[in-house]
């Protein structure tokens, strides 16, 4: 944000150009197709403006939809983070726990969140349904990233503290956690991305009429492509922005890892 370099401006310029070209191609394509299933850029923009100002068929505005989705994402993602990090650390520090429970953990990891929908409908109600599905998507990237990072802690750094008589808890707090932190953070970033990918599935089964995923589903029933595309783009855009912010924070926090050493 502060002090964008010449290279940075160039990159931004090219990205804007790419965006413009993408819109242009879309526009040409829709004019050629001339079908209500392929709304033009102008129509999508019109739908966006209308959704933002007046709201959807039930009068819920775009901002309300976005806010509802973000709250759900943060709840599911937050729960995933709070559970995955301690569990990943624990199993990283005591690999036997992981090795002996692998047969339970690993298959669960490969069940797609969508496959959990019936279970969620039967067992859960209301907000917990949203949170659960998003939690499913976000948990494993954070857990696995933390888990595999622990054995990669540099043993020299551990020995630096051991020679001074450090206790196990000190080593965990002052060496293991800081070493693993960058991997935790990238796991969180990936988890957040997947959380956004689960939002439509989550809002498919949550009862409320609010949420960007719900918006898409609503207009899918009406076969209104312009509004559907607005919803899709909104999810993409918010996911992208969150990812960018996360990446910036990561780079700042873990500068010691990103910078190239002098020797």
């Amino acid at each position, binding site marked *: 944000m502060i002090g964008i370099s010449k290279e940075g401006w160039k990159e931004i310029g090219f990205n804007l150009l790419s965006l413009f070209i993408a819109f242009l191609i879309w526009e040409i394509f829709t004019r050629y197709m001339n079908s209500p299933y392929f709304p033009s850029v102008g129509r999508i923009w019109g739908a966006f403006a209308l959704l933002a100002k007046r709201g959807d068929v039930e009068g819920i505005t775009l901002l309300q939809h976005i806010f509802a989705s973000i709250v759900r994402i943060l709840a599911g993602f937050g729960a995933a983070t709070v559970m995955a990090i301690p569990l990943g650390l624990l199993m990283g520090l005591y690999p036997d726990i992981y090795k002996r429970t692998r047969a339970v953990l690993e298959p669960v990891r490969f069940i797609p969140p969508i496959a959990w929908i019936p279970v969620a409908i039967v067992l859960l109600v209301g907000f917990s349904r949203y949170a659960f599905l998003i939690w499913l998507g976000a948990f494993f990237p954070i857990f696995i990233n933390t888990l595999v990072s622990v054995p990669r802690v540099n043993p*020299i750094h551990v020995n*630096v503290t051991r*020679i*001074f*008589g450090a206790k196990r808890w*000190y080593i965990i707090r002052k060496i293991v956690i800081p070493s693993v932190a960058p991997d935790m953070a990238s796991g969180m970033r990936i988890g957040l991305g997947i959380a956004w990918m689960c939002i439509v599935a989550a809002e498919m089964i949550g009862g409320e009429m609010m949420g960007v995923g719900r918006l898409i589903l609503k207009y899918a029933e009406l076969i209104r492509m312009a509004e559907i595309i607005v919803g899709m783009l909104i999810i993409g855009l918010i996911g992208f922005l969150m990812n960018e912010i996360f990446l910036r924070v990561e780079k700042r926090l873990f500068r*010691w890892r990103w*910078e190239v050493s002098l020797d």
Partner: protein
Amino acid sequence: MSDGRKEKVKIQVSKSFNSLLVLDRLHFSVYENEFLVIVGPTGCGKTTLAHIIGGLYQPTEGQVTFDGEIISPKRHNLSFVFQEPSCIPWRTLWDDIKIGLEIKKSKPAAIQRRVKEMIELVQLTGFENYYPYQISGGMKQRVAIARAYATDPDLLLMDEPFGHLDAQTRYLMQIEITRVWEQLKKTVLFVTNNIEEAVFLAERIIILSRLPAHIKGIVPVDLPRPRDNISSDFLAIRSQITQMCETADEEKRG
């Protein structure tokens, strides 16, 4: 050497990794305030030995005692300068040097004073807030040395601490380390594969053989300091040790 000086560390160990015997019944002692250097060819198990003496690895057989008690970093005041770069990447130089004092729960004011002293000693004043990625390899090694000295250890272990340095920095560090040792009079166990370095630093040199390492000989070095590495006495000791290392090899072949 043993005249009147107290036996500080007593080493009686063997070590094997699976079926590979690395250290073959090494029996020797380090005396109080002694600067003892262990020389041996690369890959002879010197690093393993240093780690065992520091209580970081366990010997397969035997034990290391410190003042008659089995050595342990939790009970004894030890320091170690590692061969590999060992700066903690997320700590500034200041925070890195204080880590030992932090673990030993020194008072903040004492830490402040001591770290400042150490930074002056290794001439890193002005770099306190730098991170390891911002400084050169030689500076990083000085940080590791300052960190090891900071806790005022009863036994200082140094495992080829200058191995990664260029010739000039290495020479300066050798001078610095003898100066510091003369000033503070610590018990030092220094490991190297460089015979010249050994003669330059040591009060006593232990020569190790190739794998499995056993003691090939012990040579006292009674030269005045600072030592002149082209004086005839220096060169005589140096060639004596070189010869001992070579005969060690021939024995193996024969």
